[in-house]
Each structure stands twice: as C-alpha cells, then as structure tokens.
C-alpha cells in the first residue's frame, strides 16, 4: 500500500525507530546539547563523552518521528570512535546528501547513513533527519544553548 514510500521508510529506519540505539543518558558527559524542531515538536538531548578530540561515547534521549529517531540513533552509532574532524566531515556529507543539489551524491561515502537519503524527495521531512546532526554540530562547537532547526 505504501510502495511510493519505500525510499523514505526503509526497514532499517523502522528498526531504529522500534529499537533506538544508545537511547540513554551519559551521566558524566563532556558535551550535552538539546535540539528542538519547533515545527513538529521533536526534541532530543545529545550526550557526548570525549577523550581528547575523539568521541568515545554518544547517546541521546527525547522523542520524535521515525525519521528523526532513526537519524539520531544511527548517528550515535556512527560517530563513536570518530575524531571531531571526522564527525564534522560526516555532518557536512549528511547535510549535502539530504539537502544538496548533487543528484549523483556518492552514497558510499556515508555508509549506513545512506538509508536516510530518501528524505531529499520530501522537503517537509528534511529537518526531521537533520535535527540530530545540527545538534551534533553544536556539540562539536561546544555550544551550550539549545539549538533549533528554525
């Protein structure tokens, strides 16, 4: 019945929505930033544990739609073990994948994040996918104040 939506709602997304990874609080987090999408009410808190410039642990709390939950869940998995520079590169690539003009974007560069490439066909849903990454961007820049997608 929802054949048209297969690019947007891939099975991986349903899986992460049902069982979000790293859905917990890091009590002694080095970075903690809140992200908010006022359009739909999605809220998340991102926690990072750092060793020098390496992200040793990442987790989140909050509630949102399947796209935003899957996006933040996948993100916390992928950034673990990455340096700040590597995470920043991923942020830029993810941004390009979901909002960029390049139709031949190399999906291999972003690994399993590629399951979220479908949102670019749904402008109303792009912010659901990018909220997590904008929150990460703020955490990498060591901003304390909550960020908003608006």
């Amino acid at each position, binding site marked *: 019945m*929802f054949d048209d939506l297969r690019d947007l709602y891939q099975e991986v997304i349903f899986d992460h929505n049902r069982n979000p990874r790293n859905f917990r609080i890091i009590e002694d987090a080095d970075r903690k930033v809140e992200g908010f999408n006022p359009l739909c009410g999605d809220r998340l808190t991102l926690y990072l544990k750092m060793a020098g410039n390496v992200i040793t642990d990442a987790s989140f709390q909050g509630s949102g739609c399947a796209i935003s939950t899957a996006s933040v869940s996948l993100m916390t998995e992928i950034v673990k073990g990455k340096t700040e520079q590597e995470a920043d590169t991923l942020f830029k690539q993810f941004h390009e994948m979901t909002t960029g003009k390049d139709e031949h974007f190399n999906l291999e560069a972003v690994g399993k994040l590629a399951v979220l490439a479908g949102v670019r066909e749904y402008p109303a849903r792009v912010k659901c996918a990018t909220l997590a990454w904008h929150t990460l961007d703020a955490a990498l820049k060591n901003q304390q104040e909550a960020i908003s997608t608006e």
Partner: protein
Amino acid sequence: MTFDVEKIRQDFPILKEKIRGKDLVYLDNAATCQKPQSVIDSIVHVYSHDYANVHRGVHTLSVRSTDKFEGARTKVKDFINAASDKEIIFVKGATEAINLVAQTFGKANIKAGDEIVITAMEHHSNIVPWQMLCEQTGAILKVAPINQAGELIFAEFEQLLNDKTRLVSVVHMSNALGTINPVKAIIEVAHAKNIPVLLDGAQAIPHIQVDVQALDCDFYVFSGHKLYGPTGTGVLYGKQALLEAMPPYQGGGDMIRKVTFTETEYNTLPYKFEAGTPNIADVIGLGAAIDYINSIGMDVIAAHEADLLHYATEKAQAIKGLRIIGEAEEKGAILSFVLDKIHPHDIGTMLDSLGIAIRAGHHCAMPVMDFYNVPATARASFGLYNTRQEIDVLMNGIESLIEVFG
C-alpha cells in the same frame, strides 16, 4: 433542502486533483478550506470587469468596485446578523482582528493589574496578542482550565471573573480539539459582571450558524479562507458603541475625514479601522463564498458535517492503538488523534502517499499539546464536500500504516 454531496464536489475544481497518482482526499479544512468555482470566478470577474480603487472615486469603475466591496460587507453583516454594516471591519484574518482589538480596545481600557481571561484551549492567535498587551500594560492573563475531554471547566472559568477582569476572549470552536464552547453561557456570566466578550470564530464560522445579536457577544472575529473564501480576508465584528469609543488601529488613507499637519479627524465606522487600500477583490470573493454557503444552507451543512464526525469517530474508536484527543460533548467536525508509538509526522507523510491531506503538528496550540502530554497530534477536519467514502479511505490508511510500523 436536500444535500447532494456529489453535486457539491463538482463545485470545487481542486477536488479533481490527483495527489501522488491517487484521488485527493482533502481533510485539512480546519487549516483552510478549498474554494468553489463561484468564488474563483468572482475574483477573476472583478479584475476583468469591475476593478478600480474603492471609495471617493468619481469614475465608473471605482463606483462599481465600491458597490461590490460594500455589498460584500452587507453580506457579512447579514450572514452573522450584525445590526449594521458599520460593525463589520475588514481585516486580513482572524489573527489581525484579535491584534486590532488588543491594540485599540485593549490599550484604551486595560491597565496594569487588570485581568484578561482566556481558556486553555486557545489557538496561539488568541494567546500571544494578549501576552503582548500584558507586557505593554502590566495587565495579567488568566487561563481557564479544561478537563480531559477537552471541555472548559465552567465553574473554574466563572471563578476567574472578578472586578479586575476587563475582557474575556475565548474560542468559539477549538481548532485542535473540535470543542464547541458554551459561548452563550460564557457571555451571560461575563456580562453579569459587565465584562465584554470576544469570540474567536475562526473555526466555528464554516460549521455553526452565528448570530452575533442573539449571542450578544461584543466582538466576533473570523477568517474568510476558512469559510470557503479567499485568503487575506477576515472580519472583526464589534458592537457599534464599543467600536465608536475605540481609538483607531493603523493610520493612513481611508481612515481619516480631515488631515492637516497639526491634527487629524478620523473617519466614521467602519472606515476608521480600515487604513489603506483594502483587499478589494478578495473581499468581494468572500461575499461570493457567503452567497455559496447561503445557497446550500448552514443548517444543511452542519447536519452533513455532524454525520461525518459521528461516522469518523465510531470508525476511529474501533482502531486499536488510536487515541482521540478531544472528546467534548459539544464538538465540531474535527478529529484529532494520536497513534501508539507512531509520530503524527509519520502518519501525515504516509497518508499523503495515499492522497490524503491531514495536518500533523501542534496546530498552533502548544499549550493544548502540553496538557495532553503529546508533542503533536494528527488531525482530520471535515468540510461540506467531504464524504463517508473519504473517511473509509482515511481509516483504511491508518490501519495499514499501523501494520507497516509493526
């Protein structure tokens, strides 16, 4: 009058649109209604045959344009049974109408320590203008609570009224819950304490026959686009004596009688509140929308919509994991709901792929979302052209997406 919904649907060209290859099922009427051909034609006709600036013109087109524009005012007056054309102020929407009252009546009559009473089910447009006024004046905003069904707790509302209350501003019908407030009783208890009442009729106007004199409300506001009319049109009704006593809203052309550099004499009602060239063609389109509704009859429309709401509610209640938000005894054609573990935005996107337009979000009523402890709801809202078959399509879609989400 008999009601033939299939015939009605022929009047709305957009209903023939295909959305993602499917028949459009338009259930977002609480956000805005689609337009009948007669409204679209009326705007084309004005610009093609009758258009010039209104008022003061001596040439033929200006006279024609003025006649049609003022004719629309009379249609609005008759539609809500106001006592006089002078009580009908054209604005761009219900939001502007409330802001107008806040910044004129409010500034003139509401001082530090005074109180304004609203309810917990208000749209942001009946919250924020008062908060702004309170910030400017030091007045206090009081909020009457609602119960779990989404009904005003009348006794608690009544207790909020005291000798400091300067205005009661309440929604006639809630956009997020569908609740129809007991406005007659609200006005009676407020008037017993000499407190004027503003009714936000943005949602009520296409569903409920409004008689401002029978209600005895002091202000009534609504938007044209929710009444099958054009966007950018709205109405502020105010009792003449109140409007006469209020200072003007914006300064400019049309709202003056005489201007020198030392002083200005303001125009009479309703022009005192209509500075600048008004939205001529769209107001004439609003008049055409009222003609269209009158040709069907508000009572017939209300009965059809009550049937749709009843049908949709029964079907929704049978879906496991669906929770209806807003179960007031008195309710208009709005079905707000949440699904267990499925976010409203996912519901909205999935239904859109089936051609179904609903709204997902906070519906500009964040305090209502907080009250029910949900980030958002999905909302199906019905209009005169909707059918039971469309509700079947909606409910099948909801059941399918619950299955897909697992």
